[in-house]
C-alpha cells in the first residue's frame, strides 16, 4: 500500500506543478519590499525615555532588518537594533516594544529574532536571550506597569 500512497503523493505534486504559476503569482513581493514593510512598522516606535522615535534616534535603520525565506509563505525576520545608552533595562524594553509591534502589525506569517547589534552593549548576550524568550515576553506583558509603557511606545502616532 505504500506504493499506492506514494503514487498519490506524486499525483499531488503534479497538480502543484501544473498550478505552479497560480501559486507563485501570489507571493512574489521581493524581499527588499518585505524588509521595508517591516521597517515601516518599527521606525515609528517611540523610545521609552525620550520623545523621539527609534528611527530618529537611529536605534533602528533600514539596514538593521534582514529577511530570510523559511518557506513559501513564511519568513524569518532578524532585527539588530542599537540602543542609545548601555542601560540594561531600556534595551530590553526597546526589544520588547519591537516584538510586540511586529507581532501585531505584520500581515505575513513570520518568525522573529531580535538582537542588539554587536558591540553596542556590555550585557548583549543576556539581553538577547531575554528578548527572544517568548515566555518571558508574555509574562512581562502581563505586568500592568510594563504593559502601559510598551503600549505608549508602540501606539500609532495620531496624525
Amino acid at each position, binding site marked *: *500500500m*505504500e*506504493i*499506492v*500512497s*506514494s*503514487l*498519490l*503523493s*506524486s*499525483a*499531488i*505534486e*503534479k*497538480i502543484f506543478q*501544473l*498550478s505552479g504559476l*497560480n501559486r507563485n503569482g501570489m507571493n512574489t513581493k521581493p524581499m527588499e519590499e518585505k524588509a521595508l514593510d517591516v521597517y515601516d512598522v518599527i521606525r515609528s516606535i517611540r523610545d521609552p525615555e525620550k520623545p523621539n522615535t527609534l528611527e530618529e534616534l537611529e536605534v533602528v535603520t533600514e539596514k538593521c532588518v534582514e529577511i530570510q525565506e*523559511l518557506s513559501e509563505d513564511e519568513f524569518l525576520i532578524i532585527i539588530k537594533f542599537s540602543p542609545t545608552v548601555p542601560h540594561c533595562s531600556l534595551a530590553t524594553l526597546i526589544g520588547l516594544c519591537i516584538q510586540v509591534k511586529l507581532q501585531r502589525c505584520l500581515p505575513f*506569517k513570520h*518568525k522573529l529574532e531580535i538582537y542588539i547589534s554587536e558591540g553596542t552593549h556590555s550585557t548583549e548576550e543576556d539581553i538577547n*536571550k531575554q528578548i527572544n*524568550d*517568548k*515566555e*518571558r515576553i*508574555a*509574562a512581562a506583558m*502581563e505586568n500592568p506597569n510594563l504593559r502601559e509603557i510598551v503600549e505608549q511606545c508602540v501606539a500609532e502616532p495620531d496624525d
Partner: protein
Amino acid sequence: MKEALSLVQRISAHPDSRCWFVSWSPNGALLASCGGDKAIRIWGREGDAWVCKTVLQDGHQRTVRKVAWSPCGNYLASASFDATTCIWKKKNDDFESLTVLEGHENEVKCVAWAPSGNLLATCSRDKSVWVWEVDEDEEYECVTVLNAHTQDVKHVAWHPKKELLASASYDNNICIYKEEDDDWECQATLQGHTSTVWSLCFDAAGERMASCSDDRTVKIWKEYPSEDGQGNLSWKCVCTLSGYHGRTVYDVAWCQLTGALATACGDDAVRVFKEDATASPDEPVFSLVAQATRAHSQDANCVSWNPKEAGLLASCSDNGEISQPLDRDEAVRLGVSDDHPPALLTFLQQLQISTHQSCLENGRNAPEDEAYSGTDLREEWCDDWTRHLFLSLELHLDQNWTAAEKIYGN
C-alpha cells in the same frame, strides 16, 4: 518504514490567545489545556469528536502556564504567571478549587505530581524549585525550597519509580534532586545544552531522560552508578538529536506505552522519534519516524502522549489550537498535509479508496512496502498492475484537470 502522523481533530481551544500546555488524565479519557486567556479547559470524547466539558475560568489572574493531573486522576494542579499554583478537585464532571499554593516570588512555570501522589513540585522564574507534601486531609505544606539554579526554572518532572526530581532551566542546566536524610538536595547538575532547557521527561522505566532546548537539540541522558563509590548515580548524555528542529524545541514527551519520543518545536512542527532496537543502550540511536511539519500555523508549545491509547498524541500551539495527530503503523496513509484545500483532500481520499478497492478486486495483496525514494516512480514499479494504476490515475487527473484547478485555485 516511515510512519505518518495524521490529524484526528483540531480544536480551537483558547481563541485569541496562546494555548501553552495540554495534559492527558491518567485514564486517558480527558485532556486538560491551559493558556493565555487565564483559563483551563477540560476536553472529553463524545462519539468521534472531542468537546469541551468544563471551563475553569476564575482560578488565576494571569496566564495559566501548565496543568498537571494527580496520579489518581482526582486532582488537577495549575501553575500560573500570577505566582500561584491552584489545586482543583474533581467532582463528577466539574472541578472545584480546593486550595491555592502561594510562596513563589513571581511566575510559576511548572507543576508536577510525584507518582506516589503525596508530593508536588513547582518551579518559578524566581530560580527556585519548591516541593510540597499533601496529607490525607488534603492539606498542602511546603517541605523544601531548592535554589540550585541561577536563573528562571522552566520545567520540573518526577522520576516514574523513585523519589527523584529533575528541573530544567534558563541557565542551560538540568538539576537532579533527591531526598537525603530527610532533606532534599541537588544531587547533580547536568550541563550540555548551550541554551535554555525548556522541558524534560523520563522514559517509562526511569532509566533515561530526554531534554529539549532553545539550542534546537534534544538530548538523551542515561543514569550510571557514580564513580565516587557512594552509591550515588550520575547522569551522562548518551545521545544528541540535532539537525531536525528548525527552531527552539519547547517540549519533549516520552510515550510510556511505545517508547516513542515526540517533540514540539517553534518551527510549527511536531515530530516523532523512535529508538533503533539494534543500537547499544550506551549509545542509543534515534531516528525520525514521523513529522507533521505544519502541525500548527504557529509555534507548537507542548506535546502529550495519551497514557492508554498507543499512538494518540495531543499538541498545542501559539494560535490557541490543540491538535491530535495520530501516529499508527497502519495501512494506507495519504502523505498530504492537512492544510491543502479541503475539497482537494476529499477528492484524493476518494481516489485512494477506489484504488484500494481495485487492489482487492484484482485479488492482489498490496505489494509490501518496498523502500522507495523520490518521486520518479517508473523505475520502482514492480509489476504491471501498479503501472496500470498509475496511468489511469494520470488519465483521471488530466481529464479532471479543470475541476482540480477550480478547487485548487481557491
